[in-house]
């Protein structure tokens, strides 16, 4: 017992040396759990193109409900020019994959309008995230709606720390507006390319084009859809381009095109489709997907 005082000292030092770092570790872990946690609610946000109202996706939604046999509920939000939001419909309790359609009172085409629409989209999105408390979502944009969504993901989403985007599917979105040229860049494409570093790194993007003739779906030039690669390729986790031909491939028919409905079911709703309906992409542009198993090894 001669040296009992330094034994106690060692004990105290050891306890402190374990206790304090474990505190630091703990707070880091908890914030990590918070950021990794995914709410069961996983809405699919749909944005219609120019000149279309919040009812634009009704046919698509009816089709999806019939085929999936899941009564996905639908909430429609219309954003007025002064930023007022008007809601119709509701998200039913227990429905973890509701559709939320966000449309704009000013739904005109043109660069300045689309930039404004992205801001309005942000307004509606923040309100939704606050009300329904989801922390991840997928998005579906038709035509210029895809442009508004892409702008939103670059300029606004990074500022909303609590929410991450899982998947984005754009249908016939003209990344280079009506231009058929492969060299000339319209202002919106320039904006998107300049801001591409802000895109969520884990986002998975599908760009679907329709083709009536060999170069266009009747409204949007195929080359304009193709320009999307300069925005997404090597920025997001995966960027896949798909071209659909055959019946119902004119620009405005695309959202209810049977093939595209199947693509939505497979990629956005993540259903396991029967083999005959499944689409396997012939080529896939992918960056190294983050496949770190993380902390799954914990007991």
């Amino acid at each position, binding site marked *: 017992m001669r040296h009992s005082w330094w034994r106690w000292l060692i004990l105290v030092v050891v306890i402190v040396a*374990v206790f304090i*770092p*474990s505190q630091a*570790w703990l*707070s880091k872990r908890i914030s990590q759990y918070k950021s990794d946690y995914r*709410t069961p609610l996983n809405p699919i946000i749909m944005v219609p193109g120019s000149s279309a109202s919040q009812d634009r996706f009704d046919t698509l939604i009816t089709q999806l409900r019939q085929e999936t046999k899941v009564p996905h509920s639908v909430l429609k939000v219309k954003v007025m020019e002064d930023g007022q939001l008007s809601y119709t419909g509701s998200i039913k309790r227990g429905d973890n994959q509701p559709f939320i359609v966000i449309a704009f009172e000013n739904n005109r085409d043109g660069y300045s309008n689309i930039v404004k629409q992205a801001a309005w989209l942000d307004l509606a999105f923040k309100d939704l995230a606050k009300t329904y408390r989801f922390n991840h979502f997928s998005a579906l944009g038709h035509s210029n709606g895809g442009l508004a969504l892409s702008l939103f993901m670059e300029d606004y989403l990074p500022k909303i720390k609590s929410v991450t985007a899982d998947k984005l599917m754009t249908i016939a979105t003209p990344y280079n507006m009506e231009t058929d040229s492969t060299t000339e860049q319209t202002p919106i494409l320039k904006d998107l390319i300049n801001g591409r570093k802000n895109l969520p790194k884990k986002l998975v993007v599908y760009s679907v084009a329709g083709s009536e003739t060999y170069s266009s779906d009747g409204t949007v030039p195929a080359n304009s859809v193709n320009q999307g690669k300069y925005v997404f390729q090597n920025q997001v986790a995966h960027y896949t381009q798909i071209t659909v031909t055959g019946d119902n491939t004119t620009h405005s028919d695309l959202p209810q095109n049977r093939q595209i409905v199947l693509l939505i079911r497979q990629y956005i709703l993540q259903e396991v489709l029967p083999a005959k309906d499944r689409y396997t992409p012939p080529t896939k542009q992918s960056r190294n997907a983050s496949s770190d198993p993380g902390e799954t*090894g914990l*007991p």
Partner: protein
Amino acid sequence: MRVLWRFNQRINQWRAMRAITEALRVAYPFLLVMALLDFFGQGWLTKTGFFYQIYHVKQWLPAVDLWQQLIQAISIVINGLVAVMVAFTTGHYLARTYQSDALAVGMTSALAFLTLNVNYLALGDPNRNSATGPSQFLEGNLGPQGIFLAIVVGLAVGWGASHLMKVLGRWWLAHRQTPLSWTGRIAIPLSLILLVTVSVGYALSWLNTGGLNTLVYLSFQALNTNLGHHGLRILAVTAMSNGLWWLGLIGPIDVAGNSSVTSLQNLAYAVQHGSGWGAPHPITLHTLGDAYANFGGAGMTLALLIAIGIGSHQARYRRVAGQTLLPNLVNLNEATLLGLPVLFNPILLIPFVIAPAVNIAVAWTAISWKLVPPIVYPVPRTTPGPLVAFLGTGGDWRALALSLLCLVLSVLIYLPFVRLLNLEGGADHAA
């Protein structure tokens, strides 16, 4: 207490009990080395280790993987074969008491134990000898899990082989008029015993795929699934689990379960609401047993070590307690269980079962009365026991206070029994 002491003395007279104690004593140094290596391997060098995480070992230790693999290699050899060692030492010691060929009997019992754990289902497999084929032994059963079976086999073979050799020698001498050669005296019992154990092992392989051991384990594991929220059932299962540990059936009921559905639901709740208050499953085996009744591993052995430090005069006990303190801090208590030994020690059985039960009851009361929140965040398995609840609740001081209370209670429960053991051995063993 006096009755208990007399009972203990009576039991220690038994040849089998002495053989077990002696066998475990011989195995102890090997286990101690293993436990100390495991302390570093599991606590400091693996990704899920407590110290690895809090000290960010990966960032300052060069070649972490290499260290880890070195320790793993030693671990496979010692820890992976500890049951074989125990089978050998048990048979060896028992044979020595019968004045038989101790070494030969020990080896026979080790081999007999191995035959029970051959992967019989793989025998017909054409890939058996290739690198990717099935393993030839049920390797899981050769480690600490298999200690109980090893003891049983060691006793049976130690007794059987010794007698067989004697009878055979006498019979040979009577009928052939020449003494049986040493080789014959070993080879014939060996063949007979292996024949018996192989048939038993083979027959069992028809029943289930994991050998005799798995049969026992499966029957107890069934109890563990869907324990539910009933405090009493949790209490009963933990008590039984600890009783089985005491027999050397190590870990049939896997107490540490961060990943069960209820734990995940609790975690999801805590992440959304910021704390564990009001979590959907406050009373589970995990929130009670792992958090408050598993300091040092099953049976609150950390408290046992402290009790020995306070109240034991036995030099050997104090030595073992000091040597196994570090592994016990990270909940690796096999060396303590086999070294003291706690296993098959009737006096220590009582606190070994009661201390965790009392802790669970206390924690159960505290959580039901909403004095502390349940643990919700996963913590590494090698977290020092008294910190599990504190870290698991996200740093709740009340949980830490409860942990310390549980530790003190357990030490108090262990103390009288440790003092009782001071009587053992008389003056020559005393410090």
